[in-house]
């Protein structure tokens, strides 16, 4: 089941994209993947989807010029394209014409070369630099003059007189090493500029030299709070390419694990949200229940955070006989405790004041910025992958897609709270009916995928997580791309936080619930 990708010339790209957006309502840019096809040239794969009809379209464009590859931007059509194009520029050196912000996204600004190009040797010209990382206050826009020559102009990000505060990379509330440069006017936030890449490990590049089973170990380390779902996506993508069917037992186990993982993640979300708004006590309440869940994970899969559980065509171990009882106990305990979370924090007047009407994102904004998951659903966007493109058992279980329309911090918070209950509901439907069967489908020891492009998305704890694999028929993939669920969230921070107070920046960031290793990859 390879992806059908239409090729299109760079010159016609912009008009065609505009047509797709206007006529076929392709308003959601799922992915923008940079590619290096060697001899054929450098290019980009665009994956589009319509939020209304659910139609999808995949396009690619490429240019043979390796010295000065230029492709017109689509950042004026979809807001999220801006940050995606910066990523492609960073990795492949493709200059997106008329993109107002052509800087590197993850790597240092003084990095030499474009590491994901197949002919690039990053080690040679990039020694371990001991000096401070330069951070430019200006950015470059490339455009074509009328005679067809490439030219550039500079834009200012921060003027010298701006009061810019560095939030991060070491900051208690950025949940890791996120760095945001925030322009303040008194207490009011005027502009946010995320500086990414502090925990960039180049997993996409590393994966190109690993075999498929080895690659699996990497996915747990992206969004570590959605470890199970990420690995599920990767396994499903590979299984799809191999046309491998897994047994119902495996499907049941995987679905239950995904939902338990989602509960664990949302419990941590609650803890972080309360901590970031200063309610340190509530922080411990959910950690108490999450500990039960961790114990279940530990007993069954031998890991609390990084489980390494899903494998290609199955799962690592069969579940223990005690599993169903443990999970049911947990579900009961959590339901009993659930009102405490709301009593101490969510319904509290101070928390309500901090959340209601703060950081509002409109429906158009979230779609254009690709904000998926509970955060996107808080603005009324029906984007749950479990409903849109059902996988595993999600077309058989009964559950509601939690939708709110306010789009503020409160809606995002409540969405996650309700999703905990919804996940409990799913788990309770499945836990007593796990069928007997193999927990690992027999397959060849050496895995080679057929030639083609494969994509599989799952609904991870904080949005659509997708795995894109381009295979040339080898043991290792030719190109792997992960649709990060956190990158669009960070991209939307600027829109959500403008003209809010500085303290709201933290609350909005917490309600977006991004995990940094997933953004930086």
């Amino acid at each position, binding site marked *: 089941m390879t992806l059908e990708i239409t090729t299109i010339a760079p010159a016609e790209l912009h008009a065609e994209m505009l047509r797709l957006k206007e006529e076929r309502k392709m308003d959601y840019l799922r992915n923008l993947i940079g590619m290096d096809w060697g001899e054929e040239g450098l290019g980009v794969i665009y994956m589009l989807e319509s939020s209304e009809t659910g139609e999808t379209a995949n396009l690619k464009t490429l240019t043979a010029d390796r010295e000065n590859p230029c492709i017109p931007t689509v950042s004026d059509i979809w807001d999220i394209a801006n940050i995606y194009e910066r990523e492609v520029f960073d990795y492949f050196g493709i200059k997106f014409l008329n993109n107002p912000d052509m800087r590197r996204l993850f790597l240092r600004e003084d990095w030499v070369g474009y590491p994901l190009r197949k002919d690039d040797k990053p080690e040679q010209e990039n020694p371990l630099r001991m000096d401070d990382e330069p951070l430019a206050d200006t950015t470059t826009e490339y455009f074509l003059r009328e005679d067809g020559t490439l030219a550039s102009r500079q834009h200012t990000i921060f003027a010298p007189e701006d009061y810019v505060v560095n939030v991060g990379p070491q900051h208690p509330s950025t949940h890791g090493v996120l760095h945001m440069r925030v322009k303040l006017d008194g207490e009011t936030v005027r502009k946010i500029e995320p500086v990414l890449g502090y925990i960039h490990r180049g997993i996409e590049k590393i994966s190109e030299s690993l075999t498929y089973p080895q690659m*699996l170990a990497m996915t747990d380390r992206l969004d570590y709070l959605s470890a199970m779902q990420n690995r599920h996506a990767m396994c499903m993508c590979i299984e799809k390419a191999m046309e491998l069917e897994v047994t119902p037992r495996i499907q049941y186990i995987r679905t239950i694990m995904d939902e338990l993982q989602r509960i664990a993640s949302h419990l941590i979300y609650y803890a972080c949200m309360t901590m970031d708004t200063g309610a340190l006590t509530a922080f411990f309440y959910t950690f108490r229940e999450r500990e039960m869940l961790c114990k279940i994970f530990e007993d069954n899969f031998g890991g609390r955070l990084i489980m390494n559980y899903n494998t290609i065509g199955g799962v690592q171990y069969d579940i223990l006989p005690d599993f169903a009882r443990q999970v049911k106990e947990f579900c009961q305990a959590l339901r009993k405790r659930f009102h405490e979370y709301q009593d101490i924090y969510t319904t509290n007047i101070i928390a309500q004041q901090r959340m209601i009407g703060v950081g509002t994102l409109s429906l158009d904004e979230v779609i254009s910025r690709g904000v998926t998951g509970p955060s996107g659903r808080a603005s009324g966007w029906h984007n749950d992958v479990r409903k849109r493109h059902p996988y595993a058992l999600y077309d058989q279980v009964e559950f509601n897609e939690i939708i709110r329309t306010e789009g503020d911090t409160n809606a995002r918070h409540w969405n996650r709270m309700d999703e905990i209950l919804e996940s409990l509901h799913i788990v309770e439907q499945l836990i007593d009916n796990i069928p007997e069967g193999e927990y690992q489908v027999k397959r060849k020891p050496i895995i080679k995928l057929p030639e083609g492009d494969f994509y599989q998305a799952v609904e991870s704890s904080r949005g659509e997580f997708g795995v894109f694999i381009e295979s040339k028929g080898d043991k290792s993939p030719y190109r792997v791309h992960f649709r990060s669920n956190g990158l669009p969230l960070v991209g939307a921070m600027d829109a959500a936080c403008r003209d809010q107070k500085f303290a709201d920046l933290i609350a909005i960031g917490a309600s977006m619930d991004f995990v940094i290793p997933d953004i930086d990859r």
Partner: protein
Amino acid sequence: MEERNYIQGILHASKTLLVGLKTSIKIFFEHHETEQYPENRDTLIFSDRNRFCLEMPHNEKNQYKCIACGLCQMACPNDSIHITSEMVETEDGKKKKQLVKYEYNLGQCMFCNLCVTACPHDAIQFNQEFENAVFDKKKLILTLNHPGSTLAEKPRPVVTPKPLETLKTAE
């Protein structure tokens, strides 16, 4: 939130605050969840699926099962296993690979279990010893075969391993 006037607002706010205070004081008198390590070391029970450190089980005669085939080394995504082997001649004149040193870098290990599933002879496994902290990074490079140990004699004649076929299906 519905519109409230000044007095209603104050009353509503006080009510939610009191609910919060009630909840927190209830927890105040509840059981504390703290686990007191290392006092609870004896009661810490880990399931045998926990992967803390790779080990090579030796039997009572100081014998291991590893035939130095190198599959685990190949399966490792992080190059944290390094096997040194030598060719020796057995009594019946056959050449045979023998393990000299099985080096495992705990500091690099991702605990993905690929090596254990790749092993055709169940020669390695993960153990449940979690207190692995050391002061020097070099001490994390462990040699798994004990000094003076030898290959365990198989009850049935040893077939020359054909790695790919004997590889277990479970990854």
